[in-house]
């Protein structure tokens, strides 16, 4: 009897020490940095409109505007939606009819004059732009590095972008590029010439009561639409809320009806390229929407890419692991900021651990 009691005591002690809750497992993976492989700076989870998890490390706070990198692209797409809703812009508008002072660049190839806002929303300008960062074979060949940091290119990004050759007719070649998205902010600058320092706030940020957001510009005053947005996790989640509610925020419609479906539907230029000329495309893991990414396999968009996440999941994705994830079927928003320089967080594993946590906690 004494032996049985002792064994039970030892077993229960061992079990109590080895048991880790789903929350601990989630934190251990997402925030642990034992191997210094990836680093999470912030994680915010909002379920049914309520914050169910929020954590910041490395000196970041709930009010810190964190580098969003290419998450900026979804924000730019949202601004385009706002301009359309306000009746100031149409998806069929041609850039050559809007942008002022770039006649020489448009004249260099007549096909450039046909580029529309819709082509660019689809990352389909067909400009020959090379989107590579540290992995570029030669840094100086990288269009994105030249655009963001080159001595001349970074001064007037619009001119630099329009100086690229065309690889096909406008709307025919799918290439995910920071350049294309930045052309959308070039367009907005000329759509709102009287408000060019402030239109992101007038159109969107003030409507969403975003308080900790910074958006940097080039020296000519164009917001760097494809990058250079800084935003707090809480403010970024508000954009997720806008998309969860089909473009309506706190009862007020901000985006045209059907715009969320357009933004998070399969990218039409990509689909056309996938069908006819898959080798010509830049290679990605997941299928693109329009300035967003979908939970679909790049080469077979009928299949989900992440099995641990619902198929209707869509996300904005930035360099070094910045993520805004929206899952309509779960009424769920996830913001993750990080600094994944040496390795990327495993998103499949992250989804699994987050759903285990939500399920175990009954959230």
């Amino acid at each position, binding site marked *: 009897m004494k032996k049985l009691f002792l064994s039970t005591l030892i077993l229960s002690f061992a079990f109590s020490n080895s048991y880790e809750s789903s929350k601990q497992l989630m934190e251990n993976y997402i925030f642990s940095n034992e191997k210094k492989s990836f680093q999470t700076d912030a994680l915010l989870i909002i379920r049914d409109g309520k914050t169910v998890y929020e954590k910041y490390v*490395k*000196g*970041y706070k709930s009010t*810190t*505007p*964190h*580098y969003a990198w290419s998450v900026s692209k979804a924000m730019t797409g949202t601004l385009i939606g706002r301009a359309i809703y306000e009746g100031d812009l149409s998806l069929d508008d041609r850039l050559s009819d809007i942008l002022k002072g770039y006649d020489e660049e448009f004249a260099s190839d007549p096909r450039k004059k046909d580029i529309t806002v819709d082509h660019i929303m689809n990352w389909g300008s067909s400009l020959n732009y090379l989107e590579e960062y*540290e992995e570029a074979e030669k*840094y*100086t060949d990288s269009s994105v*590095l*030249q655009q*963001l*940091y*080159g*001595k*001349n*290119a*970074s*001064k007037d990004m619009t001119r*630099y972008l329009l*100086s690229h050759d065309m690889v096909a007719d406008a709307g025919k070649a799918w290439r995910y590029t920071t350049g294309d998205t930045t052309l959308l902010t070039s367009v907005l600058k000329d759509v709102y010439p009287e408000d060019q*320092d*402030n239109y992101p*706030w007038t159109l969107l940020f003030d409507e969403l009561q975003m308080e900790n*957001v*910074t*958006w*940097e*510009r*080039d*020296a000519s005053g164009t917001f760097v639409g494809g990058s*250079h947005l*800084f935003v707090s996790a809480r403010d970024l989640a508000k954009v997720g809320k806008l998309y969860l509610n089909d473009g309506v925020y706190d009862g007020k419609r901000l985006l045209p009806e059907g715009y969320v479906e357009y933004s998070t539907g399969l990218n039409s230029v990509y689909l056309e390229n996938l069908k006819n000329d898959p080798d010509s495309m830049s290679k990605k893991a997941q299928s693109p929407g329009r300035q967003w990414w979908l939970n679909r396999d790049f080469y077979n968009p009928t299949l989900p890419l992440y099995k641990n996440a619902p198929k209707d999941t869509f996300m904005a994705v930035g360099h070094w692991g910045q993520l805004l994830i929206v899952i309509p079927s779960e009424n769920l928003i996830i913001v993750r900021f990080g*600094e994944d*320089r040496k390795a990327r967080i495993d998103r499949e594993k992250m989804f699994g651990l987050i759903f285990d946590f939500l399920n175990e906690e009954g959230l």
Partner: protein
Amino acid sequence: MKTLVKIITILSLTLYVGAEIKMSQRSFHSSLTDIGSGSSSKQMCSCMFVMKQSEKFCRQFSKEVLLIDILNRHKVDLENKTITTTIGFFFNKRQAKFMGEKLGCTLI
């Protein structure tokens, strides 16, 4: 031997400066050192004045974006909120300036 080293050094520097001048003449094609100093100035500026992290943290943050960043030298001007970066002993000097809470940093 010393003369030979001197000649090789002078020749290398001449070739480098020539390549830099040639690069700068190609309107949108910046050299590696230009990109490196531009990237580093911008990262450092945004890190300190937008993300409000410490100078020590930001010196580390702005490194490693590009391999050449290990040669960077930053000059932090807290009064004017500018970061000026020079790479090694080269001539490439780039500056990023903080333009305010909404507009963050711009390479000037």
